[in-house]
């Protein structure tokens, strides 16, 4: 009698092991192919420029970029530019996220407010905010502030719309049960509506992070004294395509790292969500 459950446990453990191994193999296979794609792209690029098919003056080449990146990082000036861009993006992201989340909850809490502001939110949200950059620079100067404001203007609407949608999509049964258990308005917001909006807010935050970086860089490209966007504009101005590509690759890596960071935080906060096997 007792042998049966032990056997069952062993079978289960075996199946779990097999699944894990299969998953690892799958991961290895995927990574392998990713590498192949990278090598293919870099190889074609390198080959095209090396054989004289395309002039590296216009498109640079992977080897030139690697050497340039090496040089930039060993000289150290690039750290300042990375720092400036990150700082602008960070300030714009945090202020925009806080304002957007609070605004989203306010709109969900006061339905009348939402109805009044709906067309304005839609109008401002449909306006390509990047087009506002010249105005922001006029108003806030060529320094840090104009970039932060541009990043803010991009982030705030994403969070506003997402938080509002999340708060409105709360399961009505949960609201009813909380009210029947005697929840006050405040408790309802903090203990039911806020936690149930977290997935929506996180989706907004991930998008917002990418947009904060866009805001900072676009602001810098237009006019700035430092930052990765400034570097890109500067190098493009002196026909240094290698420098432009180096800055772009740094930006790409930063954006990917930030996204991974956000994913990790999300995973921790949303561990109650059902785990889909195989993911």
């Amino acid at each position: 009698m007792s042998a049966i459950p032990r056997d069952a446990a062993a079978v289960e453990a075996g199946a779990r092991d097999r699944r894990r191994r299969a998953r690892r193999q799958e991961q290895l296979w995927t990574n392998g192919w990713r590498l192949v794609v990278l090598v293919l792209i870099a190889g074609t690029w390198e080959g095209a420029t090396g054989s004289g098919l395309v002039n590296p003056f216009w498109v640079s080449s992977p080897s030139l970029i690697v050497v340039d990146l090496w040089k930039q990082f060993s000289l150290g000036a690039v750290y300042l530019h990375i720092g400036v861009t990150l700082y602008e993006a960070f300030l714009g992201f945090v202020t925009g996220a806080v304002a957007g989340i609070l605004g989203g909850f306010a709109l969900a809490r006061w339905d009348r407010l939402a109805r009044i502001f709906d067309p304005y939110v839609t109008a401002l949200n449909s306006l390509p905010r990047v087009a506002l950059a010249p105005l922001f620079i006029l108003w806030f100067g060529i320094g840090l502030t104009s970039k932060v404001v541009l990043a803010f203007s991009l982030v705030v609407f994403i969070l506003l719309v997402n938080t509002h949608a999340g708060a409105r999509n709360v399961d009505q049964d949960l609201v009813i049960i909380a009210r029947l258990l005697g929840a006050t308005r405040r408790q309802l917001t903090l203990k039911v509506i806020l936690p149930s909006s977290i997935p929506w807010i996180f989706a907004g935050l991930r998008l917002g992070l990418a947009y904060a970086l866009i805001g900072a860089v676009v602001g810098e490209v237009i006019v700035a004294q430092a930052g990765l966007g400034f570097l890109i504009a500067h190098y493009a101005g002196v026909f240094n395509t290698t420098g432009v590509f180096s800055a772009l690759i740094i930006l790409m890596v930063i954006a990917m790292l930030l996204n991974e960071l956000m994913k990790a935080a999300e995973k921790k906060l949303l561990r109650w969500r059902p785990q889909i096997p195989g993911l």
Partner: protein
Amino acid sequence: MVSGLFTPATGRITVDGAPVTGINPRIGYMFARDALLPWRTTLANVAFGLELQQQPLDRREARARDLLRVTGLGGFEGSYPSQLSQGMRQRVSLARTLATNPDVLLMDEPFGALDAQTKLVLEDEFLRIWERDRKTVIFVTHDLFEAIAMADRVAVFSARPGRIKSLVAIDLPRPRSVTGGRFGPHFQELYDRLWDDLRYEVVAAGSPPS
């Protein structure tokens, strides 16, 4: 309406002689859907009502643990609803309803969404828990067997407009069990009588309103 969630169009509702004016925390409520907060562990879900009453943490946790044991969920305190079966979730929901120690329980098809076996097991468990303090329960169900097996009185509602059509006292002896052997011939008598009342309404519900 009894819970204070809706106000009646006409007439008035009293609980223990007092009119219902708003949401009454002395009434416990349970749905067919478990309506558990998915981001809370089992323990935190059961303690939710006590938390809203701002009771001290150790007291509400002790109470929640106790109720999870009673409902047969000891050991699952740290699980999230998504990790539990439908039957287990409904147990958690029951524990949450009992946690605030309400005087009256309103149960709206609490076992309606469960498979037949789980339903029988939970009905029995509920009867067992109920026997401890025999609180007033208003139990809505579409299952006539469930109604007779559990209730002291069965009210048959008519289809559109929903009014109480007949009220039948169930004089089967307690404590009862839905799984411990079938009920005797008297059960069948009650069943037939109520089914006669009900059949007409089921047919009426299926036809367009006149």
